[in-house]
């Protein structure tokens, strides 16, 4: 990228810059006229200059200058004094409009130019990140890079529009104004020029330290965002190490430093501002004194003086803005340099390596000759090793951990580069092959593959989104909109690819469209041993019944069958939801709502404070008994948990009340004991306890049948009363409707597991599986499971699930060569071997390179290459 900001701006926007300059140039004569008119108005019609004899004067005459012959182009019109006043005044108005429109036009052009260039710059920065060799990025913190792309270059966008236009526009204006003043009176002109010069020289000098401080501010702020990013990433480790105070101290120190810098900037900035204002306001003093003196002596007309003062009023604006521009320029240059510096790399991946195009199948063999591979510290992982890997065979890399097998696998998949020696594929250097070959025909799975914050399905399909395969289907207006968008993208130098197009390469999965996609994925998922997990996700997941009504219908059938089976077994394991019955396994709050809260309004922890609910309790007379019930819970909790140490696990597992809150409730109870009234806050606290109470689970004997029927009545009243706009906030239990806020499993169970029913979980599981198998729901549930959101960096998955998903993702690509490099390391040895066996069987005749874990058998492979101490031990 260009080192200097101005070069960069000029190169990418000179056409537009010239257009703006043209418009500016065209605007200047009108600006001059607007300055000149007040003089004509005051001296002419108002003071009667030229009208002394009552005669008319000629206005709007346009003559060529004397040096061009002085020929009259426009004859003009003769006007009397009053008409002249209005004609001139309206001309002034017209000029105001024209100047305003010019300004508007110029600003729009500048804004567009700036936004385009900002877009280009951001794109180029991200493009560079995509072209860095992964090793280069190890030096940077992700949050810092993100803050540079997002925040630090933002002001540059604003500056781009100003880069050439502002000095031209404001400089032109200032020059026009100064010329005008000098023409009226050379002395006043000299004063104006003098003071402007002071501003132009002294103030930039004072501003210099501010710029240096600005640079520091930028660096410290960037470091801060890097640290904040780290704190977020390391949240669990910080808690695990009890180092939160250390982090607090570090952030405090950084914020203190930023505060010092920022405050210093403000101090200096306001001093400069003060000086600027002072100089601007001291000039009129000269004009009044000196100009007045000349006016009284008759050497300067009043009109001229008024015009000079008016012109000067316009002058500080442009001058000040020019100064600001100058500083902004310095600032922008610094920012640009600093950002560009961070994105510099000795070696970038050539853009041609990323060019789209379907690669030919791999042919021949990968030949490694005398290759030496070293890690960051320079330690040799492979030492002048030569071996050959046929691309269509099953090859195992064996040997002790760290003996070289890992580096060898990474080397042939181009995940690491050789320091010396060569790696060729089919006779061509691997390094020079386009990524379409190494990224599509070879699939590499290392130990920590990154998963995106997408659904499981999209994570699995990630490797099939290499290039747009089919343009997006649209026509008419949508098409022309898309074309206009693409043209604008190209103007800003952005990527020529449409994110809305069809990117998925279905043939890799053996299908030609979205039909059968999930089934194909499930086959590969089974290979990676993830089937049961995905099925679990499906049971615990949810979906929108409006989008798949047929699935909802099938799950409702499952609900009915489950109930039938459950009823016919000797013990109740689920107490079903019934609008007309109180469910003892559920809490009081759940019984009242009889549905699942969507959002916060009716969430369990907010129920006691909800206005509608408290109104309901008042009207049904439930508030007193529920309060008493809450008090009963609090009394028991205080009694039985009082003696336990605060860190006792029972608090987390069983108590209604957190250890830290126990004293609070003790005081509360003592207060009630003493006959005092509870505060509203205390009421809410005790009611909240009551809402969380379930007789079957907590067995405090606090709920009797009369309370149950009161709660049932309240449930019905609540449902009647609930206003229309609140209805969407609860998904009510309805035996004949799928509940979109509950999981698939809860929808099938449609009730609560009975506490104390022996082996309830196992029996429920057995009936559930039976029902699912009988109704053929496995595919539906797996499909919902594939929609599971993996969370940022796949953190909602366990490490073992993440590794298996990464393997499945590689299988989805249907590569010619699959390189599995310790990719299942967190799994136990037996499971690893099972998965390996399945994958090898599924890839008969296709290439596989697998690094064997210690103790794993290489018998299933065509060849075993053993590495030890960075060298070959046997085989090959």
């Amino acid at each position, binding site marked *: 990228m260009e080192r200097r900001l101005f070069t960069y701006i000029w190169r990418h926007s000179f056409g537009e810059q010239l257009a703006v300059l043209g418009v500016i140039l065209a605007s200047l004569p009108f600006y001059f006229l607007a300055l000149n008119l007040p003089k004509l108005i005051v001296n002419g019609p108002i003071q009667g200059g030229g009208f002394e004899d009552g005669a008319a004067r000629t206005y709007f005459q346009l003559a060529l200058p004397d040096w061009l012959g002085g020929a009259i182009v426009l004859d003009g019109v003769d006007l009397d004094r009053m008409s002249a006043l209005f004609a001139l005044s309206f001309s002034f108005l017209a000029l105001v409009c024209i100047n305003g429109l010019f300004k508007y036009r110029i600003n729009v052009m500048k804004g567009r130019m700036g936004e385009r260039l900002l877009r280009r710059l951001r794109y180029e920065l991200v493009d560079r990140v995509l072209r860095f060799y992964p090793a280069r990025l190890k030096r940077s913190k992700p949050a810092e890079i993100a803050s540079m792309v997002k925040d630090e270059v933002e002001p540059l966008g604003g500056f781009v529009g100003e880069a050439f236009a502002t000095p031209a526009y404001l400089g032109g204006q200032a020059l026009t104004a100064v010329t005008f003043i000098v023409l009226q009176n050379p002395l006043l002109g000299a004063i104006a020029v003098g003071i402007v010069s002071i501003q132009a020289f002294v103030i930039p000098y004072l501003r210099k330290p501010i710029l240096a401080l600005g640079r520091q501010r930028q660096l410290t702020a960037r470091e801060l965002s890097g640290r904040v990013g780290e704190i977020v990433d390391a949240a669990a480790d910080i808690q695990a190490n009890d180092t939160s105070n250390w982090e607090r101290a570090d952030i405090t120190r950084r914020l203190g430093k930023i505060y010092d810098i920022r405050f210093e900037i403000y101090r200096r900035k306001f001093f400069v501002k003060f000086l600027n204002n002072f100089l601007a306001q001291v000039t009129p003093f000269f004009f009044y004194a000196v100009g007045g003196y000349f006016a009284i002596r008759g050497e300067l007309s009043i009109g001229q003086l008024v015009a000079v003062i008016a012109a000067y009023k316009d002058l500080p604006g442009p001058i000040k803005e020019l100064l600001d521009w100058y500083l902004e320029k310095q600032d922008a240059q610094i920012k640009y340099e600093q950002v560009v510096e961070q994105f510099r790399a000795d070696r970038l991946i050539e853009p041609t390596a990323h060019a789209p195009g379907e690669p030919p199948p791999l042919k021949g063999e990968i030949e490694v000759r005398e290759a030496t591979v070293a890690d960051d510290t320079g330690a040799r992982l492979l030492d002048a090793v030569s071996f050959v890997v046929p691309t269509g065979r099953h090859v195992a890399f064996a040997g002790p951990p760290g003996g070289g097998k890992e580096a060898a696998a990474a080397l042939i998949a181009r995940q690491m580069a050789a320091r010396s020696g060569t790696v060729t594929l089919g006779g061509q250097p691997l390094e020079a092959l386009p990524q379409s070959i190494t990224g599509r025909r070879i699939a590499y799975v290392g130990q920590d593959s990154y998963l995106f914050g997408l659904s499981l399905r999209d994570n699995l399909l990630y490797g099939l989104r290499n290039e747009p395969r089919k343009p997006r289907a649209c026509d008419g207006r949508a098409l022309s909109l898309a074309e206009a968008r693409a043209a604008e993208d190209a103007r800003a130098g952005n990527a020529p690819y449409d994110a809305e197009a069809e990117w998925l390469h279905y043939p890799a999965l053996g299908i030609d469209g979205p039909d059968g996609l999930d089934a194909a994925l499930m086959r590969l998922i089974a290979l990676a041993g993830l089937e049961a997990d995905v099925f679990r996700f499906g049971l615990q997941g949810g979906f929108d019944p409006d989008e798949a009504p047929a699935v909802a219908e099938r799950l409702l059938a499952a609900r009915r069958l489950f109930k039938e089976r459950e009823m016919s077994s*000797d*013990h109740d394991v689920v107490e079903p939801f019934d609008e007309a019955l109180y469910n003892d396994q559920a809490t009081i709050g759940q019984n009242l709502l009889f549905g699942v809260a969507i959002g916060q309004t009716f969430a369990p922890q907010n129920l006691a404070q909800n206005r509608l609910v408290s109104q309901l309790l008042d009207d049904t007379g439930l508030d007193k008994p529920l309060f008493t019930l809450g008090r009963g819970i609090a009394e*028991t909790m205080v*009694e*039985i*948990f*009082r*003696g*336990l140490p605060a860190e*006792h*696990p*029972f608090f987390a*597992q*069983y108590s209604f009340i957190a250890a830290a809150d126990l004293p609070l409730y003790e005081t509360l109870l003592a207060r009630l004991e003493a006959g005092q009234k509870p505060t509203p806050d205390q009421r809410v606290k005790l009611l909240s306890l009551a809402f969380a109470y379930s007789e079957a689970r*907590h*067995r*405090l*004997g*606090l709920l009797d049948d009369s309370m149950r029927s009161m709660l049932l009545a309240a449930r019905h009243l609540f449902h009647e009363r609930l206003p229309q706009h609140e209805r969407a906030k609860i998904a009510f239990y309805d035996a004949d409707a799928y509940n979109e806020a509950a999981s698939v499993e809860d929808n099938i169970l449609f009730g609560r597991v009975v*506490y*104390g*029913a*022996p*082996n309830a979980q196992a029996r429920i599981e057995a009936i559930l599986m039976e029902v699912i198998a009988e109704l053929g729901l496995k595919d539906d549930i797996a499909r919902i499971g594939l929609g599971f959101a993996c969370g940022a960096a796949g953190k909602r998955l366990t490490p073992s699930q993440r590794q298996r998903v990464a393997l499945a993702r590689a299988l989805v690509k249907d590569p010619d060569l699959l390189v599995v490099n310790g990719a299942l390391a967190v799994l136990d040895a037996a499971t690893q071997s099972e998965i390996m066996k399945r994958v090898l069987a599924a890839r008969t005749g296709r290439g596989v390179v697998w690094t064997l874990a210690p103790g794993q058998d290489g018998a299933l492979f065509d060849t075993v290459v053993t590495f030890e101490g960075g060298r070959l031990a046997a085989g090959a």
Partner: protein
Amino acid sequence: MSIVEDVEALRRIPYFATMDSAKLKLLAFTSTRVQLAQGGVLCREGEPGDAAYIVLEGEADIVVSAEDGRDVVVAHVPRNTFIGEMAVLRNAPRTATVVASSGLVALKVSKDAFFQLLRDQPAFAMELMRELAERLDDTTVQLRDARARLAALGA
């Protein structure tokens, strides 16, 4: 059935006779009440030992499967007895199946709660140790008798 009744039932068990009522309530509160009809299985041989049980009402048989696959009743558990604590202590699968020989009510004390009880209540731990020692002694006596009988047979 509320924990108040459980506490009364627990109080009848010698282990807990002298235990503070708040502690007993805590035990009852952190346990699950399990009800079984006659023939119901409380826990099964080979399952992980994730909980101990206190039989509050009814009786149970302890059954092991013999080599020929038949079930053999090896012991009889009356009410007010602690069972299943061996598997929890050893952190091993259950060595026998417990079947209700009448209608049965038991408190299921989870592994965590059981260890907590041992830690919080040294008196209970002592009682349990005494009980285990007695069982060991019984087993030793039985073993001696069996050996003697075996020797007599061999002679």
